[in-house]
């Protein structure tokens, strides 16, 4: 009773916020409502950060505080999701995200099964659709999917009853990474609104950057991005983002020095070797010289500014070893917070009982 009324409030608050900078231009008013109605509270999936209202994000971050405490206990095991089965299906390599979801599920008492794509029927050519239906037939309670193609988790979500969590899809979204970054910022800076966050690197291909930008703007942060022109999305020129675009409010810096100036936090993005091979970068060494975060550049940011990286790092390319392991680095905290945040997500999605599931079926 309480939760349903709270949800209605959240919805109306989000619905009223059509003037917020994140309202997508092509939405024509209708999508603002769908922002709220596709959020975690109403929908059963976490597919992207776009569908979460600021209230829903705050609620997840609050919950993650409680989960972080559980993570620090001597006995870190609770029966919250006892009897639930969570399956991770990763069509791309991952260390921290997969293990983080696995640990999160296990601490909450769920059974976690990891499907390794190379040793499953996927390598025999089974389609994503059939793999999803197979897992559904096994009464899986949640599916966590990483896929090289944007939209793959959304496709699966349309065909299965179980909640689907997007653990990264192509260049599109990585919502739990964005949320754990927001959580880390909020914990360390005492808040997100008004803080200046610089994102440096391969913005074009980075789902971390895309979800991060949306999440940060939505929570009221000042976001500035910087990267080689070849690794910036088409049309992103220095200056402010055009009104009505999904990244309205974003600042696009001319130089890394300008981006870092006065930042409360600096996020270095991973540069992949493939980018050089594809001709986006002449040379990783040159990238490091022009855009790498080192001690000198970090000193342009506010004193004690946080240094973040989603991992895995290429030390000496986008980030120098000295700062990566220095006093300002919160990179290991991000990993730890990732477990707590994913606990909050899994708990929100999987702890719902039959009453709510039945209520969901009703129009």
């Amino acid at each position, binding site marked *: 009773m309480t939760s349903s009324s709270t949800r209605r409030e959240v919805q109306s608050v989000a619905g009223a916020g059509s003037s917020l900078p994140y309202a997508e231009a092509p939405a024509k008013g209708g999508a603002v409502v769908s922002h709220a109605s596709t959020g975690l509270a109403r929908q059963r999936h976490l597919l992207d950060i776009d569908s979460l209202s600021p209230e829903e994000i705050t*609620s997840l971050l609050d919950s993650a505080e409680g989960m972080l405490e559980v993570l620090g206990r001597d006995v870190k095991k609770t029966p919250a999701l006892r009897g639930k089965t969570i399956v991770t299906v990763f069509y791309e390599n991952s260390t921290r995200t997969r293990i983080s979801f696995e640990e999160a599920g296990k601490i909450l008492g769920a059974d976690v099964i990891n499907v390794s794509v190379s040793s499953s029927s996927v390598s025999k050519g089974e389609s994503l659709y059939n793999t999803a239906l197979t897992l559904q037939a096994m009464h899986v309670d949640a599916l966590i999917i990483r896929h090289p193609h944007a939209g793959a988790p959304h496709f699966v979500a349309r065909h299965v009853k179980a909640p689907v969590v997007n653990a990264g899809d192509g260049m599109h979204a990585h919502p739990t990474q964005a949320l754990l970054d927001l959580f880390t910022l909020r914990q360390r800076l005492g808040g997100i609104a008004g803080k200046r966050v610089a994102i440096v690197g391969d913005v074009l291909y980075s789902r971390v950057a895309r979800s991060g930008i949306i999440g940060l703007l939505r929570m009221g942060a000042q976001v500035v991005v910087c990267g080689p022109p070849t690794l910036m999305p088409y049309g992103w020129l220095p200056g402010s983002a055009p009104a009505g675009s999904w990244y309205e409010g974003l600042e696009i810096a001319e130089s890394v020095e300008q981006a870092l100036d006065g930042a409360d936090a600096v996020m270095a993005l991973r540069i992949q070797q493939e980018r050089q091979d594809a001709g986006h970068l002449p040379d990783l060494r040159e990238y490091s010289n022009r855009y790498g975060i080192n001690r000198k550049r970090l000193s342009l940011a506010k004193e004690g500014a946080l240094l973040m990286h989603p991992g895995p790092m290429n030390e000496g390319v986008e980030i120098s070893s000295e700062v990566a392991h220095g006093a300002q680095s919160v990179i290991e905290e991000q990993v730890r917070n990732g477990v707590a945040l994913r606990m909050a997500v899994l708990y929100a999605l999987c702890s719902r009982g039959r009453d709510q599931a039945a209520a969901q079926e009703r129009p």
Partner: protein
Amino acid sequence: MTELTANPDGRVVLDADDIRRALARISHEILERNGGDRGLVLVGIETRGVFIARRLAANIGQFEGFTPPVGALDPRLYRDDPDQASGQPVRPTSIPVSLEGRPVVLVDDVLYTGRTVRAALNALSDFGRASRIQLAALVDRGHRELPIRPDYIGKNIPTGQDERVHVKLAEVDDIDEVDLVRMSPVGTNPAVGAEA
């Protein structure tokens, strides 16, 4: 389940003085039952149980000259009906000392079905094996669904299933008061929003 909404004609069953006296009596009873054991720990159940536990600890400090440590516990992750409160974020639990070998008094505002207490007992056992665990509640409203009984009670209030007990404490509600509110189906009283 029919959705219910509060009728405005809530009845005050305990006022500030009643609450103060009840908590003073419980503090004495806790001391009496535990023989002034200095290992005593009070653990409040989030949120209002924590404030009550702090008040009891302050009373004990006044009466006995030692203030027992107070912990805060959110038993949400141990519930068998998690969707009952899934709209609220999980709060961090903080137990300042190991409970190993210590007597613990678990404190809640309202004792009802006993499911919260059951969850809290499971949660507590993850923080060490207490020598004994006792239960204190400001209000016992009956309707137990589990074999759980309180050791210290502020007031027994017979209630119907369609009634709600609202404990208001100055720490969060600006007033010390316990109201008994009758709920009626949604729609019959559009002026007031639903509340647990």
